Structures are given as structure tokens and as C-alpha cells.
């Protein structure tokens, strides 16, 4: 390990300081600026001769030329171990609730608390015997954490084959107690604790192989699951999503426990220092990878990656780098690509699989998808859920535009139906465009009905009412059933003598279907409305010629 070296502040420019160092400087090492009683965390981001340029993770107010700097020799890292679930951290893994208890309403700078509380006792159960051969990432035992078995693993940083020398007996241990000793191939001994440390900017690769994402991730949003599915271990991007402020109170529909019990929130508001914003996504993805190593499926929601890209732009500007497109740095694309590449399904050494799915929100300037961050993101993700202003203006929610969205994943609905729906939406849109030019009176009744069908499909299937207890989440089974039902409606021909009656027919059908959507699946109400709809359809159905 590098020993601590000392430097001296010579320049202060917003959140960037330049430090003169006697001795060697390591790129990306963490340093502390000593200012009175405070120690402010910083990271070396450029080295020029004996000068290190550092981004400071805190406000630089009051810093002076001549302030002392300690360089730690370590890369920016996070603590990984039991106790992460249910926590709320800032971008540097500072636990915000504990910080609030200590400092009150405001984030006092220079206060860094242990991410995981040392004193908590965890009930450890060993899974291996002394003499067993293990690799980095192998499970040595587990402790219960919320609803999961939290596996204690061989530190990811250890290389090659190792042998278990000692393993703790079942019982209670805290994070600072040794629970195992391992011998490496050259005879070195390594202590293992319940927690380990890992540098955030380096992917965890302690697995057997990376697989292709094939299992659909069910979101219960019809538009996504049926038309633009996402697979576990896949990546997708969506322009701007609503933030999840009420997360802690949400009940998990699967376990009926609070959703926060299987959630870790990394929260860096835009008023918090910009450098910590940049590190947030890395902290988050590292924690996601850690739980993946236990054979779990993780969903990482990054909101918003555009803010993250802007943080990069801000630092790049301070470094006076030559700006690329829209002043973003030239390495923007490679940084975005390497972030999304940390998603994936992996087969672990135990044979179990685990996955990290990444959903990134982008916020393109003025809704213009041509801007660099959106473009760089689209190149690397597997699905794109494009929000549109027109849809949201017309209160068509979710405001994902089916005409611009796409997905490379397969999903669970019959591909034939999916195909049909896409073509109906496409055709309906073409006719709508045409009607703008030639008017309703210039459109044939046949085309007009096709237009109405597309509109109807959009209204009753794609649109979903997030405030309706039933309609807000549609199960896989119901989606399959409903889509088949609707496709039959779309396929049939009806006796509609003119446009007015066609419009009235679809409007009435729409109202019935919407009422159906808010009835519980397979309940008696559900069945009653279903037969009402069928009877209503019967009245206008054109009988096939015999």
C-alpha cells in the first residue's frame, strides 16, 4: 500500500483545486484537504509534473493557498457488506439518515460516516470447511439480511485459487471480526470479514461467464411488456422519468413488505457538490454488482444520466480540455458505454445466475434526441422508451411514443400479435396524417375505421391509469389474455354505415373496455363486463359469408 504523502493547495477555482506534491502522485487517488478542523475529500483527476489537479467532493468555500493536502494512495471505494439494503447514501456512500441525526437539516461538509454500522451483530452460518479450494467471489457463508440470504464472499480483489484455512463457527459477528482465513497459492494468508472494500470505477468480474439476456423482466406496464420489452440483464433508456420519492412507503406487491427492504438509494441532489454527482452512478452500479454476485436479479435505475454527463462536462470545462460536441468532453461516449456495459446476466462459479439490469433516464435538451448524451446512450442500450411531448400534452399515459420506441428484446407476448399491433398503430398514424391533408370527408370509411382501431388500441391497451388500483399493474397472464381479446376485435369487420356511427361505436367500446381494465382479473365483475363487451360487439359484428 502507498504511504500517505503531503501536498499544498496552490490554486482554487470553484470545485477544482491544484495541489503541489512532493513525491509521487497516483491518478484517481483520494486525497483530503485539511482546512482547520475539516478534512475535505477530493480525487486526483489530472497530473502535471509535480502538480495534481483534484475535484473536491465538497464546497470549497474558505480554502486558502497553502492549505495542507493528504494523498491517501487509495482509489475511490465503497464498503460492501450486510446492511446496505434499505439505506440511503449520497454519491460517496455517506449514510444520509445517520448524517441527519448527527448534523441536522444540513449536510455539513467534511463529515464522513461509516457506510455500514460496525457494531451491528450478524448471524453468520458457514458454508465451507477448512481445506476447501475457493476463488474470488466464492460463497463462504451467509447472514440473513431483510428478506435475503446475504452471502459472504471471498474478496473480489484476491486472485487465483485459494484454500480455506479457518472458518468461523455459526454465531454472531460484527463487521470488524475475522470470519475466515484464506491461503493463496504462494502461501500468503488473507483475513476475510463480513464486509469488503471495492473501487467503484472498476467492474466486479468474479464470475464464470457473462450470458446473453433472454429472460423478460415483467414491469406490468402493458406498453413496455407487450410492445417494447426489457430483459433481465439488459439495458434500456427512457427520457426523463418521475423520481421515486415515495419509494420507502411503497409496498412490494410480491413480498407485501416495504419496497425499501430490497432497495438501496444513492441520492445526490443537484445542489450537492458536482463531483459527488459524477461518482453516484459508479457507487450505485458497484453495489448492484455486489448483490448480483449472490445470485440475485438487480434493477438499477439511474435518474438522470444527463445530469451525470453534465457533471463530466463541468469538470472537463474546469480542466480546460478541448470541448467536443455541445462542449461535452471527447470521452463522453466511452464513459457512457462502459457504464451500461456493467449491466448483464452472469453465471457464477456456483452455477447460479445473477443479473444487473440498467434503466437510464436521459433528459435531452428541449426533447431533441439528436443531442450527444441521448445519441451516445442509444448506441449502447437494448431498448428505447421514447417519451413524447404530444402524448403527454394529450394526457396519454404512459407517454411513451410507440412510433419512436424500439426494443431488441423478445418479451413474452405472441410475436405475431406484437407485429399486428405495430402495423395497426403505424397504419392508423399514416391515415391520421393523411386526414390532416385531405380532411375527414376525403377519407374512405374503410380507412377511417382503421384509424379508429389504432386510436382504440392505444386508448384501451397502451394507455394505463397509474392512479387506478387495478389498471396500474397488469400481470403477464392478463396481458396475454387481453392482447388476444383485443387483437380479435381489431381483426373483425363491423357493420358501420357511416363515420359518425363508427366513431360512436368505438367510443362506446372504449368506455366499456376502460371499465373492464379497472376490474380485478378473473373476478365476477371482470367476467360480467367481458360478456357485456362481447354482447356489444355481437350487435355490430359482420357475419362471414357462408
Amino acid at each position, binding site marked *: 500500500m502507498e504511504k500517505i504523502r503531503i501536498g499544498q493547495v496552490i*490554486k482554487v477555482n470553484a470545485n477544482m483545486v491544484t495541489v503541489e506534491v512532493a513525491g509521487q502522485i497516483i491518478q484517481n487517488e483520494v486525497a483530503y484537504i485539511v482546512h482547520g478542523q475539516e478534512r475535505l475529500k477530493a480525487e486526483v483527476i489530472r497530473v502535471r509534473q509535480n502538480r495534481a489537479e483534484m475535484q473536491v467532493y465538497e464546497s470549497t468555500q474558505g480554502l486558502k493557498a497553502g492549505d495542507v493536502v493528504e494523498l491517501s494512495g487509495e482509489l475511490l471505494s465503497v464498503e460492501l457488506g450486510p446492511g446496505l439494503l434499505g439505506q440511503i447514501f449520497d454519491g460517496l456512500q455517506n449514510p444520509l439518515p445517520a448524517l441527519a441525526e448527527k448534523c441536522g437539516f444540513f449536510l455539513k461538509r467534511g463529515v464522513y460516516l461509516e457506510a455500514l454500522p460496525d457494531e451491528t451483530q450478524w448471524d453468520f452460518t458457514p458454508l465451507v470447511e477448512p481445506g476447501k479450494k475457493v476463488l474470488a467471489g466464492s460463497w463462504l457463508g451467509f447472514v440473513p439480511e431483510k428478506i435475503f440470504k446475504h452471502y459472504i464472499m471471498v474478496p473480489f480483489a484476491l486472485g487465483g485459487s485459494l484454500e480455506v484455512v479457518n472458518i468461523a463457527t455459526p454465531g454472531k459477528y460484527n463487521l470488524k471480526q475475522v470470519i475466515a482465513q484464506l491461503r493463496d497459492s504462494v502461501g500468503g494468508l488473507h483475513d476475510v470479514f463480513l464486509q469488503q472494500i471495492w473501487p467503484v470505477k472498476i467492474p466486479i468480474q468474479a464470475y464464470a461467464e457473462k450470458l446473453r439476456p433472454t429472460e423478460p423482466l415483467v414491469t406490468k406496464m402493458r406498453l413496455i411488456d407487450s410492445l417494447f420489452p426489457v430483459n433481465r440483464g439488459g439495458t434500456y433508456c427512457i427520457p426523463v422519468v418521475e423520481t421515486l420519492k415515495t419509494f420507502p412507503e411503497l409496498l412490494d406487491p410480491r413480498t407485501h413488505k416495504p419496497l425499501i427492504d430490497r432497495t438501496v438509494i444513492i441520492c445526490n441532489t443537484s445542489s450537492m457538490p458536482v463531483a459527488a454527482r459524477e461518482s453516484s452512478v459508479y457507487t450505485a452500479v458497484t453495489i448492484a454488482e455486489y448483490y448480483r454476485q449472490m445470485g440475485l436479479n438487480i434493477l438499477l435505475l439511474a435518474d438522470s444520466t444527463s445530469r451525470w454527463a453534465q457533471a463530466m462536462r463541468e469538470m472537463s470545462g474546469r480542466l*480546460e480540455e478541448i470541448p467536443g460536441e455541445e462542449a461535452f468532453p471527447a470521452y463522453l461516449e466511452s464513459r457512457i458505454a462502459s457504464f451500461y456495459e456493467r449491466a448483464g446476466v452472469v453465471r457464477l462459479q456456483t452455477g447460479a445466475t445473477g443479473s444487473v439490469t440498467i434503466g437510464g433516464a436521459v433528459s435531452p435538451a428541449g426533447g431533441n434526441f439528436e443531442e450527444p448524451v441521448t445519441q451516445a446512450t442509444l448506441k449502447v442500450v437494448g431498448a428505447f422508451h421514447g417519451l413524447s411531448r404530444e402524448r403527454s400534452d394529450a394526457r396519454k399515459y404512459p407517454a411513451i411514443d410507440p412510433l419512436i420506441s424500439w426494443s431488441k428484446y423478445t418479451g413474452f407476448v405472441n410475436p405475431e400479435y406484437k407485429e399486428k399491433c405495430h402495423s395497426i398503430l403505424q397504419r392508423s398514424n399514416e391515415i391520421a396524417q393523411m386526414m390532416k391533408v385531405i380532411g375527414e370527408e376525403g377519407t374512405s370509411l374503410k380507412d377511417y375505421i382503421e384509424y379508429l382501431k389504432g386510436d382504440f388500441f392505444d386508448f384501451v391497451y397502451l394507455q394505463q391509469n397509474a392512479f387506478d388500483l387495478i389498471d396500474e399493474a397488469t400481470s403477464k397472464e392478463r396481458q396475454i389474455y387481453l392482447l388476444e381479446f383485443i387483437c380479435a376485435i381489431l381483426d373483425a369487420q363491423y357493420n358501420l354505415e357511416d363515420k359518425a356511427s363508427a366513431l360512436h361505436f368505438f367510443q362506446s367500446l372504449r368506455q366499456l373496455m376502460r371499465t373492464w381494465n379497472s376490474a380485478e382479473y378473473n373476478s365476477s365483475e371482470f367476467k360480467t363486463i367481458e360478456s357485456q363487451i362481447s354482447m356489444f360487439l355481437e350487435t355490430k359484428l359482420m357475419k362471414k359469408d357462408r
Partner: protein
Amino acid sequence: MQKAYTNIIQIAGDVITVEAEGVGYLDIAQITTRRGVSLAQVIRIDSKKISLQVFAGTRGIATGDKVRFLGYPMRVATGENLLGRIFNGSGVPLDHGPVLSDGLIDIGAPSVNPVKRIIPHKIIRTGIPMIDVFNSLVESQKLPIFSIAGEPYNELLARIAIQAEVDIIIVGGMGLKYDDYLFFKETLNAHGALSRCIFFIHTASDPTVECLLVPDISLAVAEDFALKGKRVLVLLTDMTNFADSLKEISITMEQVPSNRGYPGDLYSQLAARYEKAVDFQGAGSITILSATTMPGDDVTHPVPDNTGYITEGQFYLKAGVIEPFGSLSRLKQQVNGKTRADHRTIMDTMIQLFASYRETLEKQSMGFQMSAWDEKLLKYGELFEKNMMSLKVNIPLEKALDLGWQILSDCFTSEETGIKLSIVQQFWPKK
């Protein structure tokens, strides 16, 4: 500590550079010139070269003038004594009242710990249906009014301020025309609100650097009141002028510009101000309403664009009305579920139909024949614009919802609206 330095080595724009030692970043200094004493703030340290932005501007500063560093950052007085008073951007009284120095606090204090915020949950009623019904304003929300120059955004801000149920109103004016400043003062006075108002005013003719301080100083005072349990409404007008001042200083400092000449940290700078909006757990709250003028009605301009991604929605003021399209209150869901059972239905249905009405208008203007459905939409659109959209309408939320049902039933049958049957049975007006 308070040694005076006399070797100013550079004067450029509103920034001077002086050689000094032991100076803290963002500290305040006093510059004594022939014209009097001005404050300045450290904005860059490069060994002994200290750059300062001078609040009163650099006109008339001599290289031999005295610079005295005070050793602390910018401060402002707080407390009840400020109520009814008017100050400039650096806290100097403009109303011939006494200079205040009670309860001095640093401006630009650290950010609020996100876990100490509570989820916004109280509606602020304004009597404007386009806000109350369609985009409810919520206590502790941060919301800008996007508009082009010449729209009555200051009138709208003043009207909301008068009607909103809050304890204290703070008006931060940036690059304000003198007339507008008088307008605010007179309107608030006429409604007896002046005694719960505090003004921090930078007019268009004042030095640029003072403009930069207005949001910080307004919000620092607001924060102090909020921590003491008060519900504070902060009006900031016009934030585009604030951003332009940032641009001016950053170009002077030879920073690499990012978009249209604005500095790369424009987003962070705006966010640091808007994020002061908060509902404190166990104390008061700060709600921020701002005006952001869009040069050339261009919503992709860096200022409205960056603002839109920080704030919780926006009111889009166009042709003297709040446009239903483009206007959005992202927090409305927090409150409109507990007002009345039909609130969300009215909100969604009326806007969906209004979108169809706009399409019909387009068809009509192209000379197409109007179908019976089109005629219904035209009638609806007209009623909606006259009775709901106009800013002249001033009715409570419940009246506005009743009016909504009235308009819908005057124009359509229930199935034409797509409203689900249970709601129709409960609310559709019986003829």
C-alpha cells in the same frame, strides 16, 4: 488578519485581481475607492493572485486602491425586522430605513440533507383554475413561469403571491425594470401584503455582480424563516437575467464556455438555488416561483432547458394565458388525489378533449368540412377557453370542478368523454 492590500494588478470587466496572502475562497473584501466603499467576493485563487468580483462594478477603481479582506463569506441580516423592507442585491437598504445587522448568517449555506425533506403534500390554492385544477401548486414546490418577454408574468407572480396562503413573501428581482419593481410594491401594498414582504431588488441599471447575489440572499433569508417554522414563498424574477450575469462573469474569467456562451456549471448554479425549495421535517417551508423569459420563445435555450430539468414542472405563459400544453406541475399527484374524487378525472378528460379541439381548429383553418363531432369539440373549446383558461377567472377549486362537469355535459354525452362508468354515475350532471 484584516491587512489591507494596495497592489491591484488587473482590472477586467467587473473583476479585479490583487496580490495577497492567506485569503479564503469566496471570502468578502472591502474596496475603498474615491467613490466610496464597495464589497467584493473572491472567485479564484491562483497562489498569491486573488481574483474578486466587485459588487458595485469596477468603474473608477484605481490600481492603488485599498483592498481589505474581511475573512468571512457574504452575510445577510435576518429576522422580523426585515419585514416590509427593501434592499439591493448586497443587502443595502433602498428604502431610507436603517442598516440591519441582526442575526447575520452566511449566504450560500450547505444543502439540505435529502432525508430531512418531507414529501410535499399541501396544495397552495390560487383561485386560478388552470393551476388549481390542472396543475396544482404544492407547498415547497419549485416552479418557473416560462414566457416570452412582454407576457404578464410579473402580474401572474404578484397575483399568486397575494392569494397564496403563506406567512412570508420574499421578492427577489433581477434586472427588473424600475416600473416592474414599483408594480410589485404597489400591488402587494394595495392588498395589505406589504408588511409580510421583503424585497431584494436589482434593477436593470445596477451593477451585474449584484444581480448574482439576489437569489442567494433572498433564499438565505427565506431559509432562516423556514427553520423558524414559517411558510415562505420566494418569487424570483427574472432568472434568465441571473444566468446572463453568470455568463458575463465567466467570460470575463476566461472560462471555457459550454452552450451559447453560458458556463459549463450553469445547471449546477441554477440547481443550487432552486434546490433551496424545501418542506422541513418539523419546521416551515420554502416555495419558489420564478420567471424565466425565453429569448425568442425558444424552450431549448440553455436557461429554460436547464431550469426545466431542475424544477418540478413549469407554467407556460403564452398569449396572456397559461397554456395547458407544456405546462406541468410534477407534484400535482401529491395533492390532487385528496381534494375531490373527481379532480383527476376532470383534469385528464378536459385536457384530452381540449387536445382534440386544437386538432379540429387546425382542420377548420384548412377549410375542411366540420363533422358533428367537430362541431361539439368547437363548442367545447370555446367554453373551456372562456370559462377555465382566462386569467380573469378567479374561483375556488370546487367551483371550478363543478364548472368542468357543466361544460362537459353541455357539449357531450358521457360515453363520448371516455370517463369510466362509476365516475359518470356519481358526477355527471342530471338534466
